[in-house]
């Protein structure tokens, strides 16, 4: 199938502003829903499609050139004549039912992105270049929508009916009942194995009032992908999400009408009753670095910008210089620290950086084992596959609410730890107690070793040496500065050496972790990278 004008046989593309198909040659328009395809099946002398592994070979209906496309593509573009063809798939297991046409034009997309990029710090210069960002490509991505039905309701809640200084009177409620509601196409998950679940979750929601029954005419001028993961993959997630949504909605209603705050043990029996396939519009900008690629994605309906762009290390270094100069000026006006203070600051900085390294390494580890990308699956029983299962089990537990509490507790504990050790160090300077003097160096040393052990455990999954190098350099810094604090040499030069080593250690660690971060923001090259602006 190709998008030819019924008047002049020229190519037609979907015009976002008018929401109609427009002929590039004679400028005539037609409603995508009224567009009639000519019969250009292989039998009628049209395109031929042969599946060849993940690549598919088809014949351009304009010029007859033999072209390749990915098996998961719905649309193919001919680089020789610029013609566009709908590629028929050999095994079309999931028919597209509905589509939200692009509401954001390429011009609006560039404006939105430029506006967004102005507020993003340390973006690589290339990604601010007006010429480069013209590479934004419109792609319809496949999504699944799930229907759900609810019946038995079990809600718990509390309401404070009397409150004074001495006591509160709290009523507890339990509500049992039945909900006679269905949740039609209420939960959405992406159906492409190439689109990371995290990015697709961030680019949601779409305004479903703009949905239309699917007609290939809407695809003209854009790329489109077919589903590449089975709908069953998200069944349980859809059930949980639907239940969450209905429980939250009932909780809000309960609180609004009767002032009762719903408890966390509330539940609604939920059953997923069906699923639908649909295409949603997105603008993609890809930025390639070696064999990896980073994305900026714009919701083609709402204009929401989501990006996972890497940090530019040169801009980061410049930022460090600016912040250091500002801090230096402030400190010169307010403080006159002793050289010993520099060593203590170095130790505290090393402690915080160790925390940062741990967070960064954990994030990289989780990404490598696809903890947040359910579409990924090896199924080969390799060690990575086993680790994936283990991490996902843990994530499931964390999803029950433990994650937030755990994160808050770990931050509180870490802050207490820092405050306590720093307090002991300050006390040691006034009391001269060498035992208290030991507190900070020992605490930092122990924490750095704990982080070191944890990173070595993650090492085989992370695949990069940066976090390991970073933590070992930091460990060396901690050992040197701990020795300086404990020995308290008379010569100031030792403190300066310790501090200089700390600066080198922090710089190496920061750059190493940012490189790791940059890797975690990028992904292996997917098929859609090869797509050019159309």
């Amino acid at each position: 199938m190709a998008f030819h004008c019924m008047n002049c046989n020229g190519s037609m593309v979907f015009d976002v502003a008018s929401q109609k198909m427009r002929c590039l040659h004679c400028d005539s328009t037609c409603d995508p829903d009224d567009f009639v395809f000519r019969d250009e099946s292989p039998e009628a002398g049209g395109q031929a499609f042969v599946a060849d592994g993940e690549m598919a070979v088809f014949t351009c209906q304009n010029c007859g050139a033999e072209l390749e496309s990915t098996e998961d593509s719905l649309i193919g573009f001919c680089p020789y004549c610029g013609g566009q063809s709908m590629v028929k798939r050999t095994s079309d297991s999931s028919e597209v039912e509905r589509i939200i046409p692009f509401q954001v034009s390429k011009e609006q997309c560039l404006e939105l992105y430029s506006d967004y990029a102005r507020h993003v710090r340390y973006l690589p210069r290339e990604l601010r270049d007006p010429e480069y960002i013209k590479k934004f490509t419109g792609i319809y991505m496949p999504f699944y929508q799930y229907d759900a039905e609810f019946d038995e309701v079990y809600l718990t809640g509390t309401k404070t009916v009397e409150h004074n200084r001495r006591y509160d009177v709290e009523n507890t409620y339990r509500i049992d009942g039945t909900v006679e509601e269905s949740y039609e196409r209420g939960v959405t998950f992406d159906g492409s194995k190439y689109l990371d679940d995290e990015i697709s979750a961030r680019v949601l929601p779409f305004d479903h009032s703009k949905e239309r029954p699917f007609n290939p005419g809407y695809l003209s001028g854009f790329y489109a992908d077919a589903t590449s993961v089975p709908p069953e993959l998200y069944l349980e997630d859809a059930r949980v999400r639907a239940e969450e949504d209905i429980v939250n909605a009932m909780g809000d209603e309960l609180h609004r009408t009767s002032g009762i705050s719903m408890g966390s043990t509330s539940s609604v029996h939920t059953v997923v009753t069906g699923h639908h396939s649909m295409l949603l519009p997105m603008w993609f900008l890809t930025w390639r670095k070696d064999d990896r690629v980073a994305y900026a994605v714009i919701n083609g309906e709402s204009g929401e910008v989501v990006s996972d762009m890497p940090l530019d290390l040169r801009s980061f270094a410049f930022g460090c210089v600016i912040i250091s100069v500002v801090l230096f000026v402030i400190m010169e006006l307010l403080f006159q620290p002793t050289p010993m203070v520099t060593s203590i600051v170095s130790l505290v900085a090393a402690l915080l950086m160790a925390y940062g390294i741990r967070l960064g390494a954990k994030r990289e580890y989780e990404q490598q084992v696809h903890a947040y990308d359910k579409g990924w699956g090896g199924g080969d029983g390799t060690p990575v596959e086993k680790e994936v299962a283990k991490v996902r089990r843990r994530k499931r537990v964390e999803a029950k609410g433990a994650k937030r509490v755990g994160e808050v507790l770990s931050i509180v504990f870490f802050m207490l730890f820092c405050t306590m050790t720093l307090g002991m160090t300050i006390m040691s300077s006034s009391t001269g107690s060498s035992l208290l003097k030991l507190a900070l160096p020992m605490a930092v040393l122990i924490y750095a070793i704990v982080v070191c052990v944890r990173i070595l455990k993650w090492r085989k999954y992370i695949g990069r040496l940066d976090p390991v190098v970073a933590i070992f350099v930091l460990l060396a810094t901690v050992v040197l500065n701990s020795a300086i604090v404990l020995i308290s040499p008379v010569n100031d030069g030792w403190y300066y050496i310790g501090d200089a080593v700390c600066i080198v250690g922090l710089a190496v660690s920061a750059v190493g972790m940012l490189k790791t971060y940059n890797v975690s923001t990028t992904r292996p090259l997917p098929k859609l990278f090869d797509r050019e602006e159309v």
Partner: protein
Amino acid sequence: MRRLSVIALLSILLCMALVPGVALAETRTFKVDDQASLLTESERSKLKQDYTKLTEYIDVALATVSKNSSTTEKYASSYMQKTFGSGAAVVFVIDMDNREIYIYSNQAGLATISRADARAITDNIYKLASQGKYYECADAAFSQILTKCEGGRIARPVKHITNLLIAIVLGILVNFFYAVWARSKERSKARVPQGPQGASR
């Protein structure tokens, strides 16, 4: 006549008020108490001679000690109390027992030599003491105290170096966490699938 008597009485009272001040100015001293025998007699005399001008502003003492069971600061404080009482004074202590030098100003003396000034001066001269050049060390200390008393500025290289190093350390740290925070805050709004079995309530 009665008016003259009142003026005379006021004049007498004014003179009485000024007398202690004049007397105090006259009694300001530069004391060299070299218990640790670090200086020669001629060095002690030369110090007194060179820094007599200090007594125009403040009481000054150089105290060296070879046996000290407490900290240098406590020793300096008690020496100050014993020697000068509560008048504005500065004591420079070379404590051979603790291997420490210390400049101590009492409450009244802090207006002239603040704690930060004292620390800056000791930072500037500690290497001379480490090398055993005690006269040069004391000479440099009193020279800088005099500069401060005369309203001049003293060099503070240690302050600049430590502030610079701390600023760089904090600059890297703050920028690193800012960069990571700024990028990761966007991710928090995503509701992603949680695992093969999904989450259960």
